[in-house]
């Protein structure tokens, strides 16, 4: 490179823009949705001892929430082409119902808020204790 930090940085940023642009061009976002089957497959890998008995699937395909045999919960949400799971012991998940959506805040530094649109959002929200996610 040139040895000039400013110029080198600009060149690097231009190269990054080129690579990301090509990645976007060659691999456009597929718009895959989270289905119960996809979420169950991911859960079986990430949390093999979790046994889902009830599901709440986001109407917009962004996430799925499963209740386990022991009252524990598993959240499966979409990140790009992939899925991300978080498991909560019984009574340890923070969630609220607002405007027909169940809003879940996993509470760990690597997560973000997830909203599940469903007619059953309020019903599910009542299940959760406000003690905070682990």
């Amino acid at each position: 490179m040139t040895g000039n930090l400013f110029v080198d940085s600009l060149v690097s940023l231009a190269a990054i823009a080129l690579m990301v642009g090509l990645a976007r061009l060659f691999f456009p976002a597929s718009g895959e949705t989270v289905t119960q089957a996809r979420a169950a497959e991911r859960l079986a890998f990430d949390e093999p001892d979790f046994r889902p008995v009830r599901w709440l699937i986001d109407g917009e395909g962004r996430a799925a929430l499963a209740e386990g045999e022991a009252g524990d919960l598993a959240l499966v949400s979409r990140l790009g082409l992939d899925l991300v799971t978080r498991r909560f012991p019984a009574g340890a998940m923070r969630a609220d119902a607002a405007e027909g959506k169940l809003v879940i805040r996993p509470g760990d530094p690597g997560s973000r808020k997830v909203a599940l649109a469903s007619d059953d959002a309020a019903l599910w929200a009542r299940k959760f204790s406000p003690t905070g996610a682990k």
Partner: protein
Amino acid sequence: MEFPDIIAFAVPAFLVLVIAELVLVRLTRRGRYEARDSAASLIMGFGSELAPLLGGATVVLAVFTAAYEFRLMTIPNVWWAVLLCFVLDDLRYYWWHRISHERRWFWASHVVHHSSQHYNLTTALRQTWTGQILAAILFKTPLVFLGFHPAMVAFVGAVNLLYQFWIHTELINRMGPFEWVFNTPSHHRVHHATNPRYLDANYAGTLIIWDRMFGTFIEEDRAEKPRYGIIKNLGTFNPLVISFHEWLGILRDVLKAKSLKEVAGYTFGPPGWSPDGSRMTSAMIKERWRRMQGEDAPSDAAPDHHATQPAE
């Protein structure tokens, strides 16, 4: 002997190779790309080059200079010394890398590199913004103190890093006898995998012989495709979260610790350690997997043994 700044020369090659991989993956469908994931990886790589300029590089230079002043012997700058230095540096890399998976303080920096669920050449550039300085001081200074010139130590370290770029791909399958000695895409796919079978394995930089020697080698199984990422995958592409989430996790745990022992465990214990065992270390995950496979599991799941990725 002059030691060129090969990383600077390599940047155009990175660009060409990433574009070549993009085209080949598109044509062959062997591998995956996601623009936002690649953007995050590349921004992390860009930041990792800038981060040492905040002062850390000067500190490392000062430590190296002092160590060289008090060196045990003077090793000449000749070809065999470069080769010897490279092999010793690769051994140094193996232990640094292994500790980076086994101790949460070091994992907090290294987790960045594993935080993508994709495995392609941009993943190679997903590097940490933190931890480089301490790693250099702790693990490279002994080579300087031994008598290798700091420029030579920096050069072989750069060669090692460059070698590791091309192995981050799903395009290349198996490589025959080359795999007996050298780290390859297949070996490194295992290292990036979260499948319980593959955890805690293949820490090598260039030479896979260290894993074979120290019992951490696992071969890629054609029947079990690696699934990449970390045990508790990130829910965002935000580079700031990628960079600092584990440090924040340590801080949060330390603040709620009830004793100094817990502080030490949360900070320097294996990733996933917790005082009550409510979280899972990689050893516990492997143990669970063996149990569920119905295998005769050896009792190596003690909370302080060979843990790798956080499973809090």
